[in-house]
C-alpha cells in the first residue's frame, strides 16, 4: 500500500508546515521594551461605545473614551471633588433653582469652532432632546440662557443636588456646535479634548485610536502621545491581552485577577457597587411578612457577611449593612456593622413578629449570582426563613421590577452620589422602589436633601440611617472592582467608577 504511507506522510507534513508557518511570524506586543518612558497607552475596554455623539455618552465604564475626545464643563477629581475644566466657576442662587456658570474663552474644538456660551448652550439643549442613555441627567433643567460670551445660566424646575456632578459626566461633555446633530459625529468625535481620533486606524468594534491634540489648552491632563481603546468584551480575552502585554490596563474580576497578579500586574481597586437583598415589598402588599420591620431586621441578622465575601468574592470588598457608598457623603460609620451576624437574634425577632413557624421569601434567580443565592439560602434557612429562588431574570427585568413582579431581589447596584442613589433605590420615583414605599418622615428627609444645596451629602446621612434602621435592604458587601495595569503606567482609581477617568493614567515614574 504505497499510497497509504504517502498519504500519512502528506498529512504529517501539512500539519507540521502549518505549525512552522505559524512560528515564523514572531511575537507581537509581548516583549515591550521596558525602561524608556512610555508615550502610548493601550486600554482594554469592556465594550464598544454606541455613538460618539456626546449626548449619547454613558456613565461608569462608558465615560472614559468620551473623555479622550471631549472636555467636560466640570472635572471630577479621583476623590470626587469637582474642579474647573471648561467652566471656571459656578454658583447657585439661594433657592438652588438657578446655576450660573462662567466659561473659559481660550478653547477651540478640533474642527476650529470656538468654545463659548453659545456652544455650551447648544450642547446642553442638544443633550436634552437627543434621547441619549443619560438624558435623565438634565431632567431638572428647564432652560439654558446665554448671559454673555462666557456665561450661561441654567434654570431648574426644582433643585437637583446632583446637577454639578452631572456636568462632570455625560451632560457636561462639550462637542463642536458645528458637528452636533450631524451623522459624522456619531462615528468621529469632534470635541475640545486632549486627544483626537485617528480615523484611519480606528475600526468599529475592534479598536478606537486617538493621538494627542497639538495645541491642547490643558497639558496637565494630556500625558500620552497615543491612546488606544481595544475592545475586549470577553473576560478571558481581557485577561490574556493584559498578561501577554497587548494592553496596559483593563478590568478583570477576583478570579482572573489571580492570574494577572501571577504575571506581576498591579491592582487599582475601588468599590463601586453593593450586593445584597433589596426587600421591595416593605408595605406587605404581596408578602405580608415583609411589612414587619422585625422580620426585615431578622433577615439582616441572618447573614455572615464576612464569610460570604471571603468565600464568594475571594475577600475582594467590605462587608456592610448600608446601601450608600463610602465616598458618597451619605455613608455613616456606625451603620457599617449595624446588623452583625447573630442567628439567635434573628430567630428571636422572627418569633416576636409571629413568624416562629417560618417565613417564605421569594427572589428571582439572577445570572452570575447563583453562588451568592445558594449561600444566602442556606444562611436564611438556619434562622427559619425559606428562600424560594424563582426563574432567572431576563433583559425585561427592569419592566418586571417596575410591575411589582418581585417582592425581593438579590442584585448588585451602583453606589453613586447621594441624590442619584436616592432616586435609584429610595424615592417614590425610584425604579428599585416599585411598591413606592414611603412615610412622611422619610419624605421630609428626602426633601431636605433635595433643597440642601452644599449640605446634600450630609443630609442624605439621615435618609441612610432611616432606611438602614427600617431594614429596607439587606446589603451584604461593597464589591471591589478589580482594575489591573502593568508596570509601564501608573493608575489612580476613580471613586464610583470601575474604569478610571482617562486623566488618571500617567507613564510610570
Amino acid at each position, binding site marked *: 500500500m504505497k*499510497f497509504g504511507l504517502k498519504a500519512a506522510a502528506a498529512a504529517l507534513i501539512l500539519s507540521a508546515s502549518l505549525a512552522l508557518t505559524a512560528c515564523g511570524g514572531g511575537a507581537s506586543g509581548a516583549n515591550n521594551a521596558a525602561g524608556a518612558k512610555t508615550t502610548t497607552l493601550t486600554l482594554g475596554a469592556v465594550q464598544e461605545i454606541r455613538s460618539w455623539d456626546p449626548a449619547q455618552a454613558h456613565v461608569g465604564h462608558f465615560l472614559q473614551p468620551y473623555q479622550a475626545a471631549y472636555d467636560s464643563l466640570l472635572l471630577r477629581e479621583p476623590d470626587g471633588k469637582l474642579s474647573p475644566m471648561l467652566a471656571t466657576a459656578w454658583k447657585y442662587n439661594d433657592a438652588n433653582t438657578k446655576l450660573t456658570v462662567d466659561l473659559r474663552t481660550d478653547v477651540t474644538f478640533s474642527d476650529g469652532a470656538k468654545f463659548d456660551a453659545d456652544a455650551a448652550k447648544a450642547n446642553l439643549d442638544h443633550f436634552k432632546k437627543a434621547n441619549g442613555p443619560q438624558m435623565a441627567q438634565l431632567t431638572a433643567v428647564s432652560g439654558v440662557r446665554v448671559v454673555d460670551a462666557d456665561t450661561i445660566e441654567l434654570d431648574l424646575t426644582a433643585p437637583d443636588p446632583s446637577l454639578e456632578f452631572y456636568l462632570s459626566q455625560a451632560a457636561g461633555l462639550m462637542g463642536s456646535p458645528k458637528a452636533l446633530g450631524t451623522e459624522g459625529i456619531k462615528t468621529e468625535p469632534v470635541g475640545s479634548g486632549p486627544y483626537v481620533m485617528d480615523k484611519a486606524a480606528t475600526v*468599529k468594534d475592534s479598536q478606537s485610536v486617538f493621538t494627542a491634540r497639538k495645541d491642547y489648552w490643558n497639558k496637565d491632563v494630556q500625558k500620552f502621545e497615543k491612546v488606544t481603546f*481595544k475592545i475586549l468584551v470577553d473576560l*478571558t480575552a481581557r485577561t490574556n491581552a493584559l498578561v501577554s502585554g497587548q494592553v496596559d490596563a483593563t478590568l478583570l474580576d477576583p478570579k482572573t485577577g489571580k492570574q494577572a497578579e501571577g504575571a506581576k500586574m498591579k491592582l487599582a481597586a475601588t468599590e463601586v457597587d453593593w450586593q445584597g437583598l433589596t426587600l421591595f415589598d416593605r408595605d406587605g402588599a404581596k408578602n405580608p411578612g415583609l411589612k414587619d420591620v422585625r422580620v426585615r431586621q431578622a433577615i439582616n441578622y441572618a447573614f455572615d457577611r464576612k464569610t460570604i465575601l471571603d468565600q464568594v468574592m475571594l475577600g475582594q470588598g467590605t462587608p456592610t449593612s448600608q446601601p450608600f457608598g463610602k465616598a458618597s457623603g451619605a455613608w455613616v460609620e456606625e451603620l457599617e456593622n449595624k446588623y452583625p451576624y447573630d442567628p439567635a437574634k434573628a430567630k428571636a425577632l422572627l418569633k416576636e413578629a409571629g413568624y416562629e413557624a417560618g417565613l417564605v421569601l421569594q427572589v428571582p434567580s439572577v445570572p452570575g449570582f447563583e453562588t451568592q443565592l445558594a449561600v444566602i439560602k442556606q444562611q436564611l434557612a438556619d434562622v427559619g426563613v425559606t428562600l424560594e429562588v424563582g426563574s432567572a431574570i431576563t433583559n425585561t427585568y427592569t*419592566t418586571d421590577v417596575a410591575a411589582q413582579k418581585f417582592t425581593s431581589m438579590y442584585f448588585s447596584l451602583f453606589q453613586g452620589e447621594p441624590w442619584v442613589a436616592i432616586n435609584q433605590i429610595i424615592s417614590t420615583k425610584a*425604579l428599585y422602589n416599585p411598591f413606592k414605599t414611603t412615610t412622611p418622615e422619610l419624605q421630609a428627609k428626602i426633601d431636605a436633601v433635595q433643597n440642601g444645596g452644599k449640605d446634600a451629602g450630609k443630609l442624605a446621612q439621615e435618609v441612610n440611617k432611616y432606611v438602614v434602621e427600617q431594614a429596607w435592604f439587606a446589603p451584604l458587601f461593597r464589591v471591589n472592582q478589580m482594575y489591573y495595569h502593568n508596570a509601564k503606567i501608573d493608575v489612580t482609581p476613580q471613586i464610583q467608577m470601575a474604569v478610571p477617568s482617562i486623566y488618571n493614567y500617567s507613564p510610570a515614574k
Partner: protein
Amino acid sequence: MTRFILKRLGSGLVVLFAVSVLTFFLLYISSGSIARNILGDQATPEQLAVKEAELGLDQPIAARYFSWLTDALGGNLGTSWFTSEPVASSLATRIPVTMTMVFAAMILIAIIATLIGVAAAVKRGWVDRVVQIGAIVGDSIPGFVIGIILVTILAIQLGIFPATSTISPGEPASAWVLSLTLPVIALLINGVTGGAQQIRSAVIKQLERDYVRTLRSRGIGEREVLFRHVLRSAAPAGLTVLSLQLIGMLGGVVIIEQIFALPGMGPLAVAATGQSDQPVVMGVVMYTVAVVILVNLIVDLLNGWLNPKVRAS
C-alpha cells in the same frame, strides 16, 4: 437542473420567511424593557414614551413586522436600536472576518480529514487505532477549551502569536495570518476528528464492495481504484459531514471570536441578543439562515456532480 436549483431556492425563501416571523415574535416577547434599557433606570415615563415612539415600539406587533419585512425586501435591514449603526454596514464589516475563519477552517478540515481518514481506512492496523483514539479525544474537547490552551501556551508563555486579534488597518497581512491561526486551529480540531471518522468508515465500506474486487481483478492499479472509484463513491458521505460541520461551526465560532476578541459576527450576535436589539438580531439570523440554505444547496449540487446516482433521486 435549473428547475432543481429554482425549487431549492424557492423552498429556501419559504424557510427564510418562516424563520423571520418566528424570530421577530420571539424577540417581541423579550423586548418589553427596550426603552428603559437604552435610557437607563432614572428615565422618566415621558422620556420612555418618546423613545418608544422613536423606535416604533408603540405600533402593534403585526404592523412592526410588516414594516420590517417591506424594508428588508427593499434591501434596508434598519439601524441598531442601541448604536444607531445601519445593520447592513455592521454585517458588512463582520462577515469577512467570520467567513475568512470559517472557510479557512473548512478547507483545512477537508484536506486533513480526508488524508487521515483515507490513511486509516487503507492502512488499518496501528494507524487506524491512533486515528480512532485521536478522534475520541478531539471530539470530546470543546473548541473554546482548545483555544484557551493554545493561547496560554503559544501566546502568553511563548509569545509566538498575539493573545487577542490585532486585525486593523495598517497592519500587514502577516498580522491577519497570525491573528487567525490560533482561532482557526481551535475551530478545526473537532471538525478534523469528526470528518476523518466519517471518511474512514465511508472508504472502508466502499473498499469492501464487489466492484472494487472486480476492478482489482482486472488489474487496475491500487492508486486508480482508490482515487477514481472509491473516493468518488465515498465523497457524498464526506461532503454531507462537512456541510453539517460548517453549519455547526457558525455556532462554535461565536465563542471562539469572543475569546480571541475577533470583530466578527459572534460578538455582534451575543451583544445584540443580550440587549434584544431587534434589527441587529434579525439581520444576523437572516444572514445565518441564508448561509445554511446556500451551503446545503451547494453540497447537493456537488454530490450530484460527483455521483450520478444521487442526481437521479
